[in-house]
């Protein structure tokens, strides 16, 4: 087994770890849903008890509240900084009237449990593995390991998960985990199966320090936008639920009630997207400088250039929509999602369908 093969195996390991972490994050979201369902049920719809908790391990609302104290202990040693955010407390107050009459019921409040701890540990393990895979790939290829679609996918997911992991150090955004990890697992799976090519040297056009600068920043920007769009997606879901969407009012989506407010999610998405936008601006500019060196023009409307420009314009529109009075958080979130959709097309569609100077996937797409 050579270094390149070892790298691939390690990346598979990282993908597995992310998949496990995704499962644990999803389980945690389900718990959040359960908590919120339990509360709802007590407050308003006693008839729904069976149906609501049927999807959860505990068949009765009472049982679920007896298991909670044990998990509370775990949460305390965990630090559990986000446990008592304002939002859930506000909800508890809303429900307070009903609960007061129901005095012997323990307050149904979500506390981070073991699943979340496991999810975070496995995420960290996955990051370590993925970093090892990236370094090994670089050693095997004898250059920076982000010169084709497979490598870009690996480094991009690494940055997305790392961004998420670093964010959790400062703010409790662990609810984003299922989304960021889920997207990363899908991307890595595609990368390992559809985009994979063996490690090797790159053609002369790529032999430039700009490969390090331009692509590194592009990867980081992509990672940022991934986290940003996760927040925007959650914001839209939560908003739909709050406005009584028939589909999202199902108790299964109760975890949405446990998230920060729509405003807070919107603000979070904005802060991350703003960083992504500045990095993307730099990516486009660095790409122009490189194009000037390699292709004798800084801008030539190559398909990749066109779509990078479109990504930039859509995110610029997003920022402007935000500073315009009268735009709802919902409309703004759709801009964020549109920007990300264009970004993804720029990475996949432009590389594989449109033929330009950026066709560096290394895959034979049969032009």
């Amino acid at each position, binding site marked *: 087994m050579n270094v390149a093969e070892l790298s691939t195996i390690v990346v598979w390991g990282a993908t597995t770890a992310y998949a496990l972490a995704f499962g644990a994050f999803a389980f945690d979201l389900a718990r959040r849903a359960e908590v919120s369902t339990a509360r709802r049920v007590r407050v308003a719809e006693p008839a729904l008890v069976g149906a609501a908790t049927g999807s959860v391990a505990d068949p009765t609302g009472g049982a679920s509240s007896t298991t909670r104290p044990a998990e509370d202990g775990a949460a305390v040693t965990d630090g559990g*900084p*986000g446990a*008592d*955010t*304002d*939002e859930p407390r506000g909800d508890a107050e809303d429900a307070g009237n009903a609960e007061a009459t129901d005095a012997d019921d323990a307050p149904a409040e979500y506390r981070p449990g073991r699943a979340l701890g496991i999810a975070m540990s496995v995420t960290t393990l996955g990051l370590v593995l993925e970093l090892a895979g990236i370094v090994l790939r670089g050693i095997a290829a004898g250059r920076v390991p982000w010169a084709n679609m497979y490598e870009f996918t690996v480094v991009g997911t690494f940055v997305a998960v790392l961004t998420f992991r670093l964010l959790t150090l*400062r*703010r*409790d955004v662990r609810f984003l985990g299922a989304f960021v990890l889920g997207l990363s697992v899908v991307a890595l799976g595609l990368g390992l199966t559809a985009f994979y090519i063996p490690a*090797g*040297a790159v*053609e*002369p*056009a790529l*032999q*430039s320090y*700009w490969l390090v600068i331009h692509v590194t920043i592009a990867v980081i920007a992509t990672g940022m936008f991934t986290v940003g769009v996760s927040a925007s997606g959650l914001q839209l879901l939560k908003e739909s639920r709050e406005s009584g969407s028939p589909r999202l009012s199902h108790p299964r989506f109760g975890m949405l009630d446990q998230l*920060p*407010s729509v*405003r*807070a999610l*919107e*603000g*979070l998405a*904005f*802060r991350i997207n*703003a*960083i992504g*936008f*500045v990095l993307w*601006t730099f990516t486009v*500019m660095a790409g*122009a*400088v490189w194009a000037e*060196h*390699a*292709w*004798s023009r800084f*801008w*030539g*409307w190559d*398909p990749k250039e*066109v*779509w990078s*420009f*479109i990504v930039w*314009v*859509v995110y610029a*529109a997003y*920022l*402007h*929509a*935000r*500073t*315009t*009075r*009268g735009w709802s958080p919902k409309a703004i979130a759709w801009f964020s999602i549109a920007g990300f959709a*264009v970004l993804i097309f720029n990475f996949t569609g*432009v590389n594989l369908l*449109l033929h330009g100077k950026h066709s560096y996937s290394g895959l034979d797409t049969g032009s």
Partner: protein
Amino acid sequence: MARTSTPAPLPAPAPAAPGPALPRLGVRGALRWVWRQLTSMRVALMLLMLLAVVSVPGSMLPQRPQNPAAVARYLRDNPDLGTWLDRLGFFDVYSSVWFSAVYLLLFTSLVGCILPRIAVHARGWRARPPRAPRRFERFEVHDALVTDADPEAALEAARASLAAGRRFRVDTDTEPATARTPAARTVSAERGYLRETGNIVFHLALLGLLVAVATGQMLHYRGQALVVEGRGFANTPAAYDTFEAGTAVNPDSLVPFTLELDSFTARFDTAGKPTFFEAAVTLTEPGAAPQDHTIRVNRPLDAGGAHVYLAGNGYAPQVTVRDSAGQVAFSGAVPFLPQDASYRSRGVLKVPDVSTGDQIGLVGFLLPTAVITGDSAYSAYPQPGNPVLVLQVWRGNLGLDSGVPQNVYQLDTAGMTQVAGADGAPVTVVVPLGETVDLPDGLGSLSFDRLPRYVALDLRYDPSLGWVLGFAVTALIGLALSLFVPRRRVWVRVTEEGGRTLVRTAALARSEDVGLVGEVEQVLDAVRELGPADRVQGSPAAALDEPNGAASARLSGAVTPGGAAGRDGDTEDEDERR
């Protein structure tokens, strides 16, 4: 344009609305209305999205500036649709009227928006922080404490902590006692003017970028030359295979340097993927001694104020053709164009100068590492391991005297017939390097003497590059400032109540701001250093101690998203909104 794209109805005609505030809706009124619409954020947003949409077809359809051959192919394959698309400019989208209209309107809108904001910002630059509002409790971020320290000292501590490092612009003020409130001293502080400065700089730099690029279009020139090893070219428009220049370029003004290709080195990995290209050249600039240089793909050469790029490379077989009389009818290197990664290259030899008989045309392939088995011939590797020419022979009139310029890579077979063997099948001539082969029909012979390489060089002169880069970097810095510099206001009110000193503070941010809580706490910490202090009942201590979730939830609630950059120049709008 703005009128049709805006759902807002026109104001009622002038006679029906005699109010003095409404402009008469004559030509001037209509223009003013159009201008207001154009410079509104709503239309700017629509133009931005429109710009994204009109950019798309250029990536889907072949574009003439990039690939004229693909456009011709598309027109041949889709004659009906193609003609219409061509008329509408779809094969040169980025110079089309509609694309230009969108971005020019967008930039007009930008100018109309940015100019009033510059004026407002310039006034704001000299302005003092707004006075302390009456009730701090209305703010999401506020806190208070009581201390035994002297009110004057507490005020000074708060002021100094805000003024430290010139972070805040700070004013102090005195409020007389009223029937309901005691006399108070206040501190007003504001920071983050750089946020709006950055925003304005960013937009102006974009404008500068557009102007710089447009200027470059007028002043630039570009030439492409194909140079075989051992040959050279001079920097004059005639020496280039293709040459194009901006409207403001005088073709006689080119710096007349000469460039000679000494050798070209290409390396490939075992799989045949290129790993290294380098051209060794000799540059002779006017009045200077010849100098040796190298050009690589990412390392252009500076020559005569222009950049010379290595754009491509290939083989130019050196051949000699003798006619039926044994006279040398052609001798020279003929560039063949690589068709694939193995450098299977296609080329044409035109031999018009025969001393007797028909003119000769030879069409076919060069195989650098030829593998020939039965009917099939291919190249196994891009390096010249076993170079072989595989050519088909035509005889007749090459049509070179008709006066119509011909493509050197194509044979005009209209006046020619293909030489066929006894079985009627076309004859294929196979010539390995260093050998001479007789042509069929007694047409003469062909020698494959040497196999030099050639390079395709791109020369580009664009004096605007420095400006383009400068504006781009300025835009990036402005953008970062406008997004990351926090704009904050902090107020402090110090009163004496019941023999102790009550210090209250509140803070407001222009946009989402995680650091706002810290500002308030820093002020109170400065006061706490003066002596023992107690929390005030009802101050939001819990939320402030919370490092994440809760605090940010409060903050984003505190601020409306319509913060920075009110498009109507109303940059002080947060005061109304509170």
